């Protein structure tokens, strides 16, 4: 079953709820190796996204993702704002009115590539790339081996969660945490963790679809 605008809206709703629920947790993670604002940033961003979507009816997934992108960019700020904004811009470009498994995998791939291009980070630098890159690979593999949309998102979400956990022992070489050098090891990267929640929301939204 293809995913459509309904999925996009539900995903966004669940993402907004996740940002709210995990707000303190994400800020605490950022306090350890950053500037203690990641949870607040995301929550502020998605709250604004909800408002924006409720105010202006969205035509299709492409327009919706674009609105989300612009809202996140102007409300999240810091490093995460442009990174997630870019991810959503790429989702917008890759989105279709009806998205098959292959389309979903391509979208995740586009978002991940956008984040990497924007942040000039590669895997292993203890950033959100460490959630998105494995998620993208897992989604591709799942689509190629014939999984449906939910299967693709399932693969992506669980790879992202694993990826986020793997940041624990990494030494940051990008972003604010890099100034800490070795002292950044032993803490999860807040952006990787929040990204895994985002992909989990995408899955849950599709599951219900």
């Amino acid at each position, binding site marked *: 079953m293809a995913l459509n605008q309904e999925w996009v809206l539900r995903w966004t709703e669940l993402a907004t709820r996740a940002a709210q629920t995990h707000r303190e947790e994400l800020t605490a993670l950022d306090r350890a190796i950053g500037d203690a604002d990641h949870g607040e940033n995301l929550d502020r961003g998605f709250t604004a996204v909800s408002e924006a979507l409720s105010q202006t009816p969205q035509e299709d997934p492409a327009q919706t993702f674009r609105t989300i992108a612009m809202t996140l960019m102007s409300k999240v700020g810091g490093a995460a704002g442009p990174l997630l904004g870019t991810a959503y811009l790429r989702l917008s470009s890759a989105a279709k009115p009806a998205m098959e498994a292959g389309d979903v995998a391509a979208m995740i791939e586009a978002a991940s590539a956008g984040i990497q291009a924007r942040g000039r980070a590669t895997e292993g630098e203890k950033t959100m790339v460490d959630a998105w890159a494995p998620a993208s690979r897992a989604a591709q593999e799942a689509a190629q081996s014939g999984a449906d949309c939910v299967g693709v998102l399932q693969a992506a979400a669980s790879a992202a969660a694993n990826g986020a956990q793997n940041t624990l022992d990494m030494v940051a070489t990008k972003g604010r945490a890099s*100034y800490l050098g070795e002292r950044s090891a032993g803490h999860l990267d807040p952006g990787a963790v929040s990204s895994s929640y985002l992909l989990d929301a995408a899955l849950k939204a599709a599951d219900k679809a």
Partner: protein
Amino acid sequence: MKALINNPQDVVVEVLEGFARANSDLVSLYKDPNWVGRAAPRQGVAVVSGGGSGHEPLHAGFVGDGMLDAAVPGPMFTSPTPDAVLAAIEGADNGAGVVCIVKNYTGDVLNFEMAAELAEASGHEVRSVLVADDVAVEDSTFTAGRRGVAGTLLVEKVAGAVAASGGSLDEVEAAANAMAESVRSMGLALRGCTLPHVGEPGFELSDQEVELGVGIHGEPGRSRVDMASADELTDQLMDAILADKPLDAGDAVILLVNGMGATPGYQLDIVFRRVAQRLDDAGIVIARNLVGNYVTSLDMEGVSITIAKADENVLALWDAPVHTPAWRKGC
């Protein structure tokens, strides 16, 4: 925290309102998103800068003839978002293109980059120049790179001078890049700074401690050292700067002795005196200098030293007239 503020959440906006009112002959304040432009627009390449607030007079204090066309003040110590930067770019560009001067922090870099892409998408030609002059941070593949600190002032000055003289986009960009390449800075704090909405200093120092290599956001520095005389502390900064960027006898430099926001001027003069002694000893010529609280960290007490080698061309750019709220000469 004891400060002349009202509601901590309103500090950025009230500072901008007061600043814009006091300097209404020079600047205009735009809101939602916030940016500061010139009261009288001009022709030619536009120079735009910005970043988190809390570094006053940087950047808005340098909007005016011979320097910036627009400044984008973000929230306290937080990069402005792309829409604000975009508004400033669109407001400042008169068709000749825009050079953005960006301090090297991931947030600033990414938000300015997005803004540049959005601006380019709507037909503006945008170049970006990164400032990363803080020798306190290792410049390696293991970090996001050096931070941009007080050297930004020098980059903004030369870029603005080339733009004012009718330079092309390439020329403004090249002059800014050349200064960004050559300028080096390092600072120290005797007292950390306090974000109004946090109310506690970013770090606490005892009377016996100094934060050496401190950042301009109250980030802890390279190391915590013992409190010492002005001359000894100045020497520690000079040693680090000269080790990073060796200068030869006979070299001419532009020197900025910069207070961190709450540093009384008399202490800056004492530091300047020592810097001059050090440069004299090394045969390095102080061709031009500036002493004052220019690139600050709210109410931090401390000092930074910025040095850039300067040839005749750069000195001519430095000497070019400038008429801004925080710096005026030659007109």
